[in-house]
């Protein structure tokens, strides 16, 4: 059309149908989200296991400080209690460490491995994109020649352009097809992959906590005052504190 001097304003012809593009975007979007989740989860799990370890270490410190105190030397009852507490805390630490190792093996490592697949995927998508650009470019060239007057050299160039176009288009389409087919499979495989991790994590926690419950339950039975409830102890503490405050040597607050 000669009365249209500029073609710049025209929108690029859609060489890839909208639906296909949309599907691609959707699938890739899901995978991108999965990648993000995997990465974040890996970090969080590491933080969580570190926090667990810190907790059991500080618990051990409680009993350790108590034990190393000269207070226990004279006082047999106190010594027994503190020794038992110390044993319990150390066992807690050991179990915790084991739990963390288990989690490391069955959850964090698999997460890392799964995450290492994503760079390849991203590269594949990038290459498809590159192929698409090439395809577009050559397609535009072909169309440019197609719209020119059909003279000899133009026709020759057109033919050449078309020849160039063909392999590029095929390459793009192959890539596109491959990705469209394989991305959903990838996404779906996460279920089979992560369910065992999840189960293992839960199991590890359940085992740990039931063991801890048993340890502390035994400990509280073993120490004297099994009958006292927390309220009773609280009241007794209050009474003792008042008693102390009544002493003349204690400063008035």
């Amino acid at each position, binding site marked *: 059309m000669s009365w249209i001097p500029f073609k710049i304003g025209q929108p690029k012809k859609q060489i890839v149908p909208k639906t296909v593009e949309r599907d691609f975007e959707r699938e890739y979007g899901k995978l991108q989200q999965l990648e993000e989740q995997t990465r974040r989860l890996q970090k969080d799990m590491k933080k969580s296991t570190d926090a667990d370890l810190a907790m059991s270490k*500080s618990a051990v410190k409680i009993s350790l400080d*108590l034990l190393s105190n000269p207070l226990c030397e004279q006082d047999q009852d106190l010594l027994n209690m503190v020794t038992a507490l110390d044993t319990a805390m150390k066992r807690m630490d050991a179990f915790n460490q084991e739990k963390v190792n288990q989690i490391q093996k069955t959850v964090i490592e698999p997460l890392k491995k799964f995450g290492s697949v994503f760079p390849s995927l991203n590269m594949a998508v990038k290459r498809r994109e590159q192929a698409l650009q090439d395809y577009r470019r050559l397609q535009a060239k072909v169309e440019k020649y197609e719209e020119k007057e059909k003279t000899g050299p133009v026709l020759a160039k057109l033919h050449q352009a078309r020849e160039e176009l063909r392999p590029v288009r095929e390459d793009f389409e192959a890539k596109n097809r491959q990705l469209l087919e394989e991305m959903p499979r990838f996404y779906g495989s996460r279920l089979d992959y992560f369910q065992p991790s999840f189960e*293992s994590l839960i199991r590890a*926690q359940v085992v740990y906590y039931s063991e801890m419950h048993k340890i502390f339950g035994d400990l509280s039975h073993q120490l004297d005052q099994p009958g006292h409830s927390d309220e009773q102890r609280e009241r007794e503490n209050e009474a003792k504190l008042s008693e102390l405050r009544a002493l003349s*040597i*204690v400063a008035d607050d």
Partner: protein
Amino acid sequence: IAQYHIPTKQLKAEVILEPHEVSVTENYFQTQWLIWSFSASFRGKPNLLDMGSLMIKPIQRVMKYPLLLCELRNSTPPSHPDYRALDDAFAAVKDINVNINELKRRKDLVLKYKKNDEDESLKDKLSKLNIHSISKKSKRVTNHLKILTRGESQVKDNTFNREEKLFRALEKTVRLCVKNISLCLQHIQDAMPLALQSVMDLQEISYNKDDEMDYSETLSNALNSCHDFASHLQRLILTPLSALLSLFPGPHKLIQKRYDKLLDCNSYLQRSAGEESDLAKKEYEALNAQLVEELQAFNQAARKILLNCLCSFITLLRDLMLVAQQAYSTLVPVPLLVSSISEIQNQVLEEIQNLNCVKENSATFIERKLSFEKKKPVQILPEMPHQTDIHRSKLLSTYSAEELYQAKRKCNATQEYDINLLEGDLVAVIEQKDPLGSTSRWLVDTGNVKGYVYSSFLKPYNPAKMQKVDAENRFCDDDFENISLFIFYAVHAFQARSDHELSLQEYQRVHILRFCDLSGNKEWWLAEAQGQKGYVPANYLGKMTYA
């Protein structure tokens, strides 16, 4: 006399003292009781409206008895049968008075010294300073030092020492407990929500949205339990322990004061007894007795509180673990064996990696592909070994000095036929222009390869200047290759003093094999001359310019 029932024996000293110290409202009931118990002995004296005079009555009474009994005794002839009883009564009553006094002294001392020092400003402290207090303090310091250094005889009270040790140990324990338990609580509060959250997140990617079981309730329950644990711990353990901890400084101050009094007392031990020493002794004993009695009570109560708190801690932990266990149990599906987990996962991973899109694009594959696809093929030169001394000596022997240049810095090959050079590499210039005629690019020989470098990277080779630096940097290890380069001569003669050293004559030429001795000392170089090897001092040698 038998008619004089001696009510004083029934009265305990403390009972008399109580109303003296505390405010009327607080001890209203006590005073009521006192009024009632005394009403009999007052025998109908109705004019007791003044509370002050009422309260003073017992004291006056107690003080009257000794006087009364004393008079009575004095007016009784010793032969009278009651004389003995009177005597005893008089002694007993006097004792009671003394006891009351001492008790009062104890309480007064304690009251005086337990005042909170922190409120005192600097001005107050300064105003307290006077000659008397300064001399007192300096005497105490002296005595303290005497005890420390000479172990002089001193008043000792083992009971007190035991109690005091216990007191200090308790304080330390309680303080540490508060700190450690708080820290542990902090960690628990950090760790448990994190763990729960991670579980939830993992669950999210492990299951489809549709068949996702709703665990949000479990999650919130568990978090609530965690909060409860924290608040219970605070209430049952940390608050009482902190309160207990705040009670320690008071007695602590008094203990310090007691020690001061002890020092005062000790200082009088040596000298003769006098009024001052009596007072010091009395004060010390009063404070000591008070402290011993009350520290015992303190320690016992503190210990009980500590034990209670520890028990509560254990039960709280037990309950928390139970809650956590239950929370996680609701989430667990069919448990799997650990071994099969890795199998399953490896299988899945293999499947994924076999996907074409992944296989073709894995990192290693990409590198290979890239190397083929690069638009501008760069001639990948074979990994060029660095210039060794063989090459250098070859260059030196082949080319003349004017043709030799040295690389000022590292040159990277950029164009075809370029070569890489490291800083300091020796090159011989073959042509001072390149094939295209540019004179900024020169054809050089490194002894190993020939190629082009930019002339701006080269500077003329000055062996004299270069040698020293080079020698120290590069030839401290074995390098027999380049013997010809490093010829030195002995500036002075040197006499070897042992087998390891080499004798030199003046101006004798030597080859240097090593520029340091076995221990790395750069003052001694291993030299060779006339077939003999030995160490020579470096400063005896002068460099020969390359000829």
